[in-house]
C-alpha cells in the first residue's frame, strides 16, 4: 500500500493520469451531435482552411492536368456516351415539363401549403474541397462553404456521380463533410438513409445504414420483399422521414441476401461516387421546415 502511495506521489504519473481523464472527458463531450462549435474551434478551422485552400487548388489542378492528358484517348468514348445522354435528356425534358406543370396545377387545386409545395425545392451550391483527411475510420473532407453561406449540419453533399456524405460540423467559412463510408448501424451517432430503387419508388423500401470496408459496398437493410428489387437497380434516397433530401443517387445493387435475422433482406450496393480525388462537391440545401 505504501508503495502505491509512493507511486502516486510521483508527480509525473499524477499528471499523466489527470491528462488521461481530461482527454476521455473531452472525447466523450465532443462525440455525437453538438449544436454549435465554440469560437476557438471555428477560428482555427477557418484560418487553417484558408491556408489549406491555397495549397489544395494548385495541386488538384496539376494532378487533374496529368490525369486528363493520360485519359485523352478515353475522351472520344466519353463524348459518344454524353451525346446519347443528351438525346435522352432532350426527350425526357419535354415529358418532365408537362408533368411538372400538371403537378403544380394539382397541388394548387389540393390547397397545398407553401411549406408543402417547397418541400422538395432543393437549392444546389457548388463547394470547393479544401482538404482531405483519409483516416480510415474517421474519414472527412473540408469544403469552403460555411454557416455564413447558410450551410447547416446534416445537409447532404453530392458529387457529380452520387451521394458523398453529410455535413457534420459547420464553422463560419468552412464545413466538414462526414463521408458515407463512416456509416455504421452499430454506431448510435450514425443515421441511416431511407432508400428506394429508381423507377420503383413505390415498391422498394430499405435503409442504407452500414458501409462494409472489406467489400467496399453499402448495406441496404430492412428490405421486405426481395422480388421487387433487382441486381443493377440504381438506389436513390427516398426522402421518407423528411430530414434527408430525396432522389440522391447512392449506388447500384450488386447482390441481394437474406438479412441478419432472416426476416428481411439486405442488398449490397456499389457506391456511385468514387470517394477519391476530390475537387468540387455540391451541397444540397433543403428548404427550412417551419415548426
Amino acid at each position, binding site marked *: 500500500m505504501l508503495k502505491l502511495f509512493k507511486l502516486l506521489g510521483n508527480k509525473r504519473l499524477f499528471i499523466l493520469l489527470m*491528462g488521461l481523464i481530461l*482527454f476521455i472527458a*473531452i*472525447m*466523450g463531450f*465532443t*462525440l*455525437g451531435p453538438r449544436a454549435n*462549435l465554440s469560437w476557438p*474551434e471555428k477560428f*482555427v*478551422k477557418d484560418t*487553417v*482552411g484558408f*491556408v*489549406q485552400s491555397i*495549397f*489544395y487548388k494548385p*495541386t*488538384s489542378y496539376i*494532378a487533374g492536368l496529368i490525369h486528363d492528358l493520360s485519359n485523352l484517348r478515353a475522351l472520344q468514348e466519353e463524348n459518344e456516351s454524353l451525346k446519347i445522354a443528351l438525346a435522352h435528356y432532350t426527350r425526357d425534358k419535354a415529358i418532365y415539363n408537362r408533368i411538372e406543370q400538371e403537378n403544380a396545377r394539382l397541388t394548387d387545386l389540393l390547397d397545398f401549403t407553401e411549406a408543402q409545395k417547397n418541400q422538395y425545392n432543393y437549392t444546389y451550391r457548388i463547394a470547393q474541397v*479544401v*482538404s*482531405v*483527411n*483519409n*483516416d*480510415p*475510420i*474517421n*474519414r*472527412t473532407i*473540408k469544403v469552403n462553404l460555411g454557416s455564413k453561406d447558410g450551410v447547416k449540419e446534416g445537409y447532404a453533399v453530392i458529387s457529380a456521380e452520387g451521394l458523398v456524405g453529410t455535413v*457534420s*460540423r459547420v464553422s463560419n467559412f468552412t464545413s*466538414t463533410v*462526414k463521408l458515407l*463510408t*463512416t456509416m*455504421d448501424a*452499430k*454506431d*448510435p*451517432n450514425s443515421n441511416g438513409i431511407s432508400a428506394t430503387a429508381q423507377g420503383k419508388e413505390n415498391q422498394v423500401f430499405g435503409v442504407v445504414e452500414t458501409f462494409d*470496408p*472489406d467489400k467496399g459496398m453499402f448495406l441496404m437493410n430492412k428490405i421486405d420483399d426481395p422480388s421487387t428489387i433487382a441486381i443493377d437497380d440504381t438506389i436513390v434516397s427516398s426522402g421518407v422521414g423528411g430530414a434527408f433530401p430525396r432522389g440522391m443517387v447512392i449506388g447500384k445493387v450488386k447482390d441481394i441476401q437474406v438479412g441478419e435475422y432472416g426476416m428481411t433482406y439486405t442488398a449490397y450496393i456499389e457506391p456511385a461516387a*468514387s*470517394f*477519391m*480525388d*476530390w475537387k468540387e462537391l455540391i451541397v444540397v440545401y433543403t428548404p427550412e421546415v417551419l415548426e
Partner: protein
Amino acid sequence: MRNRRKHVLILLLFVLFIVEGTVVPWLIPGAWQTRIVPHLSYIAILFITVYDNRHSGLVLGLLFGLLQDVVYYGSIIGAYSFAMGLSSYLLGLVFRSPRAPLPLMMIVVIIGSLLLDSILFGTYSLFELTHQPYTWALMNHIIPNVFVHFVFALAIYVPLRRQLELITKHRSSQSQA
C-alpha cells in the same frame, strides 16, 4: 538569431501538416487512398523528441494532434491529440539521446508509427466508431503506414537532424555562459 531557427522549425511542422491534407492525397494512387494515411508532422515531432527533449515532443504532439482533431472534426476531438502527445512523450522517455544514430532513429520511427495508429484504433474502438478487429486495422492501414513513414523519415533525416543539432548546441552554449 538561433531562436528564430526554432520558430522556422515550428512553421515547417505546420506546413507539413497542411501538406498532409492537401498534397499527399493526390500523390497516393486511388486504391490506396484510404490505406495510406501518412502523419508527416508526427514523424518530424518524433525527431524533435529524440534529438531535443521529450517535453517539447509532448507539447508539439499535443498541439498538432489537437490541430488535426479540430480541423478535420468528424465525430470526435482529442483522439489524435492524445495519441500523438502520449506516443511522442513515451518514445522520448525511452530513446532520448542527442547522438542517436540513423538505425536507432529508424527503429523509433517504426515503433512510433505502430504506436500512434494502434492508440488511435484503440480510441476509436473504445468509443465504438469502428467494430473491426485489430488485425483488420493492422493489415489495412497500420503496416502500409509504417513503410511510408519509414521512407519519409529517411528523406528528412539529414536536414532535420542538422537543424536540431544547431538548436541544441546553441542552447547548451547559452547555459554554460
